[in-house]
């Protein structure tokens, strides 16, 4: 197990290094992938581990982005301080909304998570003097990272900065996932009744997971604010939440490398489809989603197992 997780981490770092040298002209896009990986990882904690069905992870992402952006403009431009502020903002919003949301389940929960993100967008839109409204928040100029590396025009610093933050979040989540707390989240996911029966407060576990996920989504938002130097209302959009969910399911829930794999595959397909046909790429995305749901319900990470079982003639290859 140990060896395997080290090799997975090694493969991913190697992929990051290879991508840097293979696609030097696409650094902005590659950096975007790292940011999305962090967002999808946060969703994996909330949905894959704790089983909280949410379509509003963008709410915390947006909160983190605006908080970090405003902090950089008005208080202190240090990037790491910005990440902390983003994480706190995301966690705070998740805590406030989670106290109410985590009492509901099913359709109501899904809908309320979307509603929270829409309220966020509405507030950002109305508080024009502070947030810039529909024009977006401009003028974010993060200072040098650790006082050494300046954010350059080509995006080399941004790339490695985002890569490092993504690696940190990945490591943090793999520790959390294996901790007793992470295991109890899996228990809450698989059988809330039994967890309640053995004396675990399901509501409390779900709330803690939601707040942690919110903090990580806030980091992703803060990172995007620092790297693009702009925060728009799109950070709160339903499409962002939905795409994060699609990436997670595409890769496979409950496994961190599944989240990373799904993000890379989805973002690449999205990028190529949008570049080839800027008007009709939504067909490709819609088709991709339906293919995943109907043909690959456990995601890409389950593909090798399914194929192996299929070749052995096991009829329950998909389960």
């Amino acid at each position, binding site marked *: 197990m140990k060896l395997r997780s080290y090799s997975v981490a090694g493969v991913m770092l190697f992929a990051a290094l290879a991508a840097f040298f293979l696609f030097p002209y696409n650094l902005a896009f590659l950096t975007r992938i790292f940011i999305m990986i962090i967002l999808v990882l946060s969703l994996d904690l909330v*949905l894959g581990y704790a089983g909280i*069905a949410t*379509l509003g992870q963008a709410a915390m992402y947006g909160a983190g982005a605006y908080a970090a952006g405003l902090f950089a403009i008005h208080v202190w431009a240090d990037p790491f301080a910005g990440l902390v502020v983003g994480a706190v903002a995301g966690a705070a919003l998740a805590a406030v*909304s989670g106290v*109410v*949301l985590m*009492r*509901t*389940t*099913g*359709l*109501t929960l*899904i*809908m*309320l998570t*979307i*509603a*929270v993100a*829409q*309220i966020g967008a*509405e*507030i950002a839109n*109305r508080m024009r003097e502070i947030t810039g409204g529909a024009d977006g928040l401009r003028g974010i100029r993060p200072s040098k990272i650790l006082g050494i590396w300046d954010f350059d025009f080509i995006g080399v610093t941004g790339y490695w900065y985002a890569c490092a933050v993504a690696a940190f979040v990945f490591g943090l989540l793999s520790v959390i996932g294996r901790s007793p707390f992470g295991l109890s989240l899996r228990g809450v996911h698989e059988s809330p009744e039994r967890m309640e029966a053995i004396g675990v407060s399901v509501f409390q576990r779900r709330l803690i997971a939601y707040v942690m996920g919110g903090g990580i989504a806030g980091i992703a938002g803060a990172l995007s604010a620092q790297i693009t130097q702009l925060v728009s209302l799109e950070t709160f959009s*339903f*499409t962002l939440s*939905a795409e994060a*969910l*699609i990436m997670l*399911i595409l890769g496979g829930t409950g496994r961190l490398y599944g989240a990373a794999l799904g993000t890379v595959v989805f973002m690449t397909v999205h990028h190529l489809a949008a570049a080839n046909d800027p*008007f*009709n790429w*939504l*067909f490709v*995305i*819609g*088709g*991709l*989603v*339906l293919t*995943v*749901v*109907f043909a690959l*319900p456990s995601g890409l990470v389950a593909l090798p197992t399914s194929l192996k079982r299929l070749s052995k003639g096991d009829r329950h290859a998909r389960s």
Partner: protein
Amino acid sequence: MNLLLNIAVDGIAYGMILFMIAVGLSVTMGLMRVVNLAHGGFALMGGAIAHWLIEKGGLPFVGAAALAVLGTVAIAMPLERVIYRKIYGFGELQQVLATIGLTFLIIATIDFWLGSSLLGIPLPETLQRSVDLGFRQLTAHRMTVIVVGCLVILGLWALLERTRFGILLRAAVDNRDTASALGINTGHIYMATFALGAGLAALGGILGAELLPIDAYYPLRYMVLFLIVVAIGGLGSILGSFIAALAIGLVETAARYVLPDMATIITYTLVILFLATRPQGIMGRAS
């Protein structure tokens, strides 16, 4: 006083539109237990077809609206048969994802067909005329919306309470498995209900185009609004959806009159607080 009357009239008209669009969603969700995020797509289809028939075909408003509703039903039936029937058996998350995928495909299709600009549905002159209500002028269109909304709820009530189909549908909503074991063809009921819901959504989309403007991204923009009606009304309850739609229509309209900048925020906050205290909705059964 005048303000209150204004809020009442506009809020009820808005609520009727919400009701027409969302009632089919509520019944299908209660009946098939499917989380359907693509429902707004049917309202969009209705609006888009009506727009095309009027602008390109030169048809009169009523004829175009009727054809558009029928056209939407004709699209919804095979869609139910081929795609939705498979989705019913999925887990919640898979349903969400599949219907999001479907929504994207509907948006892409309309975008490909008519572009992403606003799809206006011009009203005939008879509907643009003002009617004097004593305290204000009201367009005949608003009046029509309110009347049609009342007819829809009466028609649905008659259908459910007074026909054989209604009995079968209620049986299937109450307990799908028992109904099926008693020899009721639930498959046919699913398809008929789904088609009816889609048709009503199309009607609501066309009549409500003034309040909820039609363009390709319509299903995403108003998704939450329709889901809120269903969640507040209680899954599967027609009366619940009606009360919820009117309540939301009135609250949002009142907020728009009094605090225009805060309308959406106030409405959503009230919705969240309501659902936190009563998660099963007005008429829903506690699970």
